[in-house]
């Protein structure tokens, strides 16, 4: 028999004051920015000074957020660490590659090389707590977090681990931001917070590190239960409704059973039709939620959506700042998250409330 998988710890560092907070935080809007500024905790309070000085931004965010999620769950040693990142350690990669060019492939320093690999955060977390368990980092575009989540969920469900630290991390470097602007991925004008009424292509970018501790035991106050995760690389807009229906049917549900649908709308008119069509076809009478106006777009932005949805199920509240269609809120028992990026990397996550568990 498959075990149930509970979310027992959460943490998030983002463009919002989410670290050490829930959804009752003071949301911050940056209407003039096409790259949202991250609100960083004071890392000196959480990381040893000797280690901190070698850590780039994404490593600081990742290790601090991971440790906070473990602390939130009361877990000192998870059985495994499974992380997703789309871009990895960009800052150190840029630094190392720039040194190769600048120094004619000579005199390359070790630190940037060591920390330029995509699995650095997972490794640093493991080294920090002495975890010798299964340690894997998924680098799978905009379903990197979902890939990690699916692995973690299946590993626990099949009885191969009791607790797993999972999460999504991505940083935006100056070099990456410049490239994204040139290629039209980042918006170049307009009110960037108007994600729902955007008339232009591209998105507002962000970065972040959201972590969760999954467990086969609900503990004292689990946030939610991870019921199912599904993803596919390619999906035509007209096929989304069928894919969502099939996913829900496989879980014994219909669209009417979903109490809130969390959509990854990011203000790119070229691809937001995926969400509007899904919302119209299946969830016209369902409270609809969005979040990327708060955290920006990045490959693992869905980890922010996951963090938010878990808090919604825990508190039975949808923060007004995330509401799309202003329908009367129901009791939140099932939340479905749907995300895609640039028309590819589609994912569905089904979460269940466990407010009355155990």
């Amino acid at each position, binding site marked *: 028999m498959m075990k149930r998988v509970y979310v027992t710890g959460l943490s998030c560092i983002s463009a919002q004051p989410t670290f050490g907070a829930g959804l009752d935080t003071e949301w911050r809007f940056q209407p003039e920015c096409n790259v949202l500024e991250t609100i960083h905790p004071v890392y000196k309070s959480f990381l040893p*000074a*000797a280690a901190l*000085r*070698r850590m780039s931004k994404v490593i600081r965010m990742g290790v601090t957020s991971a440790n906070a999620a473990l602390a939130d769950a009361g877990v000192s040693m998870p059985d495994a660490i499974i992380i997703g990142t789309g871009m990895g350690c960009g800052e150190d990669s840029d630094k190392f590659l720039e040194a190769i060019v600048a*120094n004619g492939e000579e*005199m*390359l*320093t*070790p*630190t940037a090389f*060591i920390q330029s690999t995509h699995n650095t955060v997972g490794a640093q977390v493991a080294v920090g707590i002495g975890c010798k368990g299964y340690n894997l980092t998924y680098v799978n575009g905009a379903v990197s977090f979902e890939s990690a989540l699916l692995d973690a969920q299946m590993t626990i469900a099949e009885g191969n681990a009791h607790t797993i630290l999972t999460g999504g991390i991505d940083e935006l470097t100056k070099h990456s931001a410049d490239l994204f602007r040139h290629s039209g991925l980042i918006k170049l004008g307009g009110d960037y917070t108007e994600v729902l009424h955007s008339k232009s292509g591209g998105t507002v970018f962000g970065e972040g590190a959201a972590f969760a501790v999954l467990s086969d035991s609900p503990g004292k106050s689990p946030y939610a239960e991870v019921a199912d995760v599904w993803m596919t690389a390619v999906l035509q807009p007209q096929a989304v409704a069928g894919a969502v229906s099939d996913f829900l049917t496989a879980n014994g549900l219909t669209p009417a059973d979903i109490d809130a649908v969390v959509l990854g709308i990011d203000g790119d008119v070229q691809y937001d039709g995926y969400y509007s069509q899904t919302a119209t076809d299946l969830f016209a009478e369902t409270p609809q939620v969005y979040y990327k106006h708060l955290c920006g777009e990045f490959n693992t932005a869905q980890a922010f959506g996951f963090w938010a949805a878990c808090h919604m199920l825990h508190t039975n509240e949808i923060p007004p700042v995330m509401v799309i269609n202003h329908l009367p809120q129901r009791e939140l028992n099932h939340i479905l998250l749907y995300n895609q990026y640039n028309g590819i990397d589609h994912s569905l996550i089904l979460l269940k409330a466990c407010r009355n568990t155990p």
Partner: protein
Amino acid sequence: MEDLKLELKKNIITVLNLEDLKPEDIDDNAPIFGDGLGLDSIDALELIVMFSKEYGIKLTDPKEGKKIFISINTMADYITAHRTV
């Protein structure tokens, strides 16, 4: 010599990301490894690269580094005697 020591301290702070330190916080005679600045073997590699890049000094013998990377004074003395740029 004093200018070289100041430049050396600034280079060390930059190369090793010692963001909480200012040049005046580093004692010329204090050990930079172990109890002093608390540097380690990865930092030693960074310092070897810095010596090559900034002063044209190529250190190939690890034993040699132990005698050079003792303090700011020993490093400045070695640079003065061996620099090529």
